[in-house]
């Protein structure tokens, strides 16, 4: 019978893949909101990493769990500011496409 066991490596690979997808999205997406979502993806990959390390490396204290709660909180604040800027810039330009933000040299 096939036994399925999940080890630390599985979590790490999942996190690395998620992080890679997020990073790829940040570098290629042209829509500001999509880029913000990709940053969230990267941060969630980090949370998986932290929780997996917490479970397998330091099972007796909660360092990784506490850390990931901080990451979630700060990410929310950052997205809040980011979306506020998106709205302000949309009022100005009626667009959230990064290719159209060309007053400054990119």
């Amino acid at each position, binding site marked *: 019978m096939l036994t399925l066991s999940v080890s630390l490596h599985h979590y790490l690979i999942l996190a690395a893949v998620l992080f890679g997808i997020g990073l790829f999205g940040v570098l290629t997406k042209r829509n500001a909101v999509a880029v913000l979502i990709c940053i969230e993806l990267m941060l969630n990959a980090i949370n998986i990493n932290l929780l997996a390390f917490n479970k397998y490396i330091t099972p007796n204290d909660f360092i990784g769990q506490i850390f990931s709660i901080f990451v979630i909180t700060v990410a929310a604040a950052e997205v809040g500011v980011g979306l506020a800027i998106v709205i302000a810039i949309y009022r100005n330009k009626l667009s959230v496409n*990064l290719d159209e933000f060309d007053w400054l040299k990119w």
Partner: protein
Amino acid sequence: MIPDLSLIVPELAMAVLGLMVLIFGLIIPRGSRHGLGWFAALALLGVTGLVLAGWNNGGNLYGNLYVVDQFSQFFKITFLLAAFLVVLGSMRYVDRHLGGQSEYYSILIFATLGMMVMSSANDFMTMYLGLELMTISFIILVCFRRLEAKSLESGMKYVLLAGMSSAVLLYGLSLVYGITGTVVISEVGKILAMRAPLPLLMLGVVMLVAGLGFKISAVPFHMWSPDIYEGAPTPITAFLAVGSKAASFAILIRIFVVGMFGISLNWELLLAILAAVTIIVGNLVAIPQTNIKRLLAYSSIAQAGYILVGLVTASQDGVKGVLFYAFLYVFATVGAFTVASHFYNVTGSDEIKDYAGLAQRSPLMAAVMVVAMLSMAGIPPLAGFVGKFYLFMTIVENYLWLAFIGLIMSMVSVYYYLRVALVMYRNDPLDSTPIAVSAPVTVTLVVAMAVTLFLGIYPGPVAEVVNNAAHSFFMH
């Protein structure tokens, strides 16, 4: 056990001050808010006094998560003085271009608080919180001119790129945590010193360098800084160039010199190459710039390269050089940017060609600009020379090639700095009306120039202080 809160009195005072300024701004009628800038400036001086009063009162808090040593206190004084000078220099700008909004001062104070937390943080969580408090405050400040497209656009770029770089940094931190099983930086140092480096750890180190390289705008992670420096309100550009960079250097030193000391052979060369590329690209790209803020942005990239040199050897002398350079860099940069910001207030232009004949229109502004720029170039009687001397002294033994690159590129930098001086002193002004300099701006300019000259001629006392601070850093 109740923690010894006396150690974090300055931080508590800053938090209270930030909230106070925010509330005062709401209850004071719009017409009489001008005094708020003075209040914030004087209060910042008061907090500097608190840090100075606790200079010998070191120790750590919360089970070694938060360290107060002379290293962190020196950085705190640097940030507070920078914030003080920026607030003084920006009052007129706030009234004219930001609609006299009092939130400006409050957010600036919170950004400073974030930097102070960063300089004292001894674990990844505290460090990350301080970093994000600073970054999010800066994002708001960068797009503070919310009706102006340029300011908003640079804010958008900053929020996306800062988010990405924080994520890369965090991924590196999570790997280091996974390998060592702790987030306390001094514990990480002890564990790594006993163990052969794993490939996974190297991946983590590279990600830390990339994430922090973005924050200090080291090449090749510098692409954001000229755009954001140009689009942000000029006083904020000054604070971004000085404070955010110095604070990122504080955590860079703490992570690498304390946490990664045991594996220093593996990252020394990486940082040396990063420093060399940063110095070369920063100085060369500065040459064709025509906008004063972009020129200063590229020059500040080059300065970051010089400061990185101090980290390469991970020694006490290197840390001393970094502290000294960070301190003098505050005054030179704030001086130069305050001139640019005041010039913009009066003429509405940031182009170098419009600086023609500034020496006739306002001798003080022209003189401060020249002194600040020559100090950044490292011309002998000025502070920049002494700072570069301390930095490059540490690497002549093992990294002579890096010292050569630094010296040659310093000479290149004299060219583009002197071009600005030439425009100001030789060319005739198109409009020869004198530029009036208001009292707070005069104070900022005179302080910046006086300190830059004084540190160049008589660096002894400050060198002594940074020596002790660097020593205290290696004590624990």
